[in-house]
């Protein structure tokens, strides 16, 4: 089993006894009706997710969609009404308070939207908080905390108090506090939402750097789709306590499960999300298993003609205007390139640029017409 966090049909209802409410909702009652009739509020409805080890998993939704509650269910700050959360194969409901605290100390760090730094502690004592609670001796925990602070670029500020720092720096302290214990799981609750856009993008970069250094399982809550797309290996879209769809940004964009999902992506620049490989199409004229310019090629009438060898590698292209172009002089697009980055090339070349995968195999070409149509899809 590779999944670090396993969520199995989880329910959380606020405001009273949940059992009958869950039954009613399961049989199709609208949660708004439930709220108006009984005052019970369904925050999380029948959510099942598997979060893999080492991935950045973004839970995306508008405010009130239940995403923060979902995050708090993962470390037991909120107890589910029904369903089960398993962390590394251990069921949360089977843990006593002491074991739960041990799990929180050793396995998970949390970062808060409001930073939640302790105002009476210096920066280094804030960063060392988790270690202090875990009973690590003072010199040792100070060393570890300082290392975490240096990693987030705050090594020199460690004797200040939180209120003496800017918002961005405060959240770096929050991140250092979560990193000091070096936990395999990071829970981030709208961690960058309170920061201004430039700082936010810096912090996103820092998070990606940290992830590149040491793979952690990061569950990131966000209401910002751009942030979700930038950070997330996978994204779960939540609305009214339910997960609408879960998958990579591209699969959500190109293959939305419902109108609601499409609605979310309405304002998203699909050129920034879609991969050239996803829209590449076979060219009209393709010659396979030919050795470059030859009688066979001359026999083909058309423009341009793409020539592949037997292992589907590109040999070259014949165009009317430029004649034969060898493969090593061709401009190609690698799979994984975003449409936005491919646009200049598509616009400037005389022939539609071919797309190749990481092994060099030909996947298709991007014509200007294809490009325009793919942008139009989500409008």
């Amino acid at each position, binding site marked *: 089993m590779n999944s670090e966090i396993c969520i199995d049909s989880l329910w959380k209802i606020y405001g009273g006894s949940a059992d009958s409410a869950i039954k009613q909702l399961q049989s199709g009652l609208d949660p708004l009706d439930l709220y108006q009739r009984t005052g019970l509020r369904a925050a999380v409805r029948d959510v099942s997710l598997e979060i893999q080890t080492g991935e950045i998993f973004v839970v995306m939704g508008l405010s009130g969609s239940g995403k923060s509650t979902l995050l708090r269910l993962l470390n037991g700050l909120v107890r589910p009404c029904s369903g089960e959360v398993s962390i590394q194969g251990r069921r949360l409901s089977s843990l006593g308070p002491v074991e739960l605290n041990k799990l929180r100390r050793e396995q998970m760090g*949390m970062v808060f939207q409001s930073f*939640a730094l302790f105002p009476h502690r210096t920066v280094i004592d804030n960063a060392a*908080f*988790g270690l202090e609670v875990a009973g690590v001796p003072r010199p040792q925990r100070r060393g570890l905390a300082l290392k975490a602070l240096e990693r987030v670029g705050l090594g020199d500020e460690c004797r200040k108090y939180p209120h003496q720092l800017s918002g961005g720096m405060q959240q770096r302290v929050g991140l250092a506090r979560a990193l000091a214990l070096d936990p395999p799981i990071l829970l981030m609750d709208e961690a960058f939402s309170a920061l201004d856009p430039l700082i936010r993008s810096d912090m996103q970069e820092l998070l990606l750097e940290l992830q590149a250094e040491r793979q952690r399982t990061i569950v990131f809550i966000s209401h910002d789709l751009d942030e979700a797309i930038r950070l997330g290996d996978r994204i779960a879209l939540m609305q009214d306590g339910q997960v609408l769809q879960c998958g990579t940004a591209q699969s959500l964009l190109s293959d939305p499960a419902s109108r609601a999902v499409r609605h979310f992506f309405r304002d998203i620049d699909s050129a920034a999300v879609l991969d050239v490989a996803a829209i590449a199409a076979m060219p009209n004229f393709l010659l396979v298993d030919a050795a470059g310019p030859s009688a066979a090629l001359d026999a083909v009438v058309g423009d341009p003609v793409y020539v592949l060898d037997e292992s589907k590698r590109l040999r070259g292209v014949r165009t009317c205007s430029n004649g034969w172009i060898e493969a090593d002089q061709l401009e190609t697009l690698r799979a994984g390139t975003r449409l936005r980055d491919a646009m200049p090339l598509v616009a400037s070349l005389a022939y539609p640029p071919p797309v190749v995968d990481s092994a060099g195999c030909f996947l298709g070409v991007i014509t200007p017409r294809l490009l325009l149509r793919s942008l139009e899809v989500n409008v």
Partner: protein
Amino acid sequence: MVQALPFGSAYGFAAVHQAGALGLAVDAAVVWLLTYAQSLFDVVNAGVMALVVFTETLLAAPSPWSFALIVAGLGLWRVSGGFALFALLGLNLVLAMGLWDPMISTLALVLTASCLALLIGLPLGVLSARLQPVWRLLRPCLDLMQTMPAFVYLIPAVMLFSTGAVPAIIATLVFAMPPVVRLTQLGIRQVPVDLIEAGRAFGCSELQLLWKVQMPSALPTVMSGVNQTIMLALSMVVIASMIGGGGLGDVVLRGIQQLDVGLGFEGGIAVVILAVILDRLSQSLRLEGERTVEARSRRWRSLWRTP
């Protein structure tokens, strides 16, 4: 006169005839306590007496001049130079008026009563912040303790503990305790939710949550409670001179009884000086780091450091 106040069950019954049914019941309860729990009160009496004697001996040990210098030094460290000067001059005035010894015994009463009030009040405050039923039970009691006219405490205090310093301290203790309970409860309840969440998310046990998150965050509010308790204790100790508490209250009381305006004024001024000193010093407990000598000396040193 102190001796003329009702004392003992014989006087108690004599007074009952003026009270209604409720008063009769309260009186009966006090008489019952006197009959069956006398040994308990004796133990409390001896304990509090030992405490107040110890405190007074300790406070009277340094000479007036060194005492004033110590207070001024504390003021310089925690408050400001101006306050230190005021403390020095004020204590000098008390000494000049010949009220040094009464002031020391008043101070001993205040400190003993406040310490006991904090010893009981702080845990009660913590408990009522964490357990809703405790708070629901305690709240009307605190209302009662705070709004009941201060003189009313003197009567049962005298009946249970006779006259002198001990009933004065007990009455003061009851009167001065509510603020510290209330403000401790308030301080802990007001700790921001996200801090509590952060504490729990990093694996705090309940006890760690209290000591590492809630108490430090509530400290300024708790310290205002401590300050209020000390100030209320001072005002009550003066009133408690009517049951033989002694100290500056005695001087004021003599002024009233002999219609001696000058004597009353001197006693009053001494109380005010003591009050200002106690207030500023106990308020300074609330201030964080910035105003300590350490921070100030850092500021001075930074002037010499080349940038």
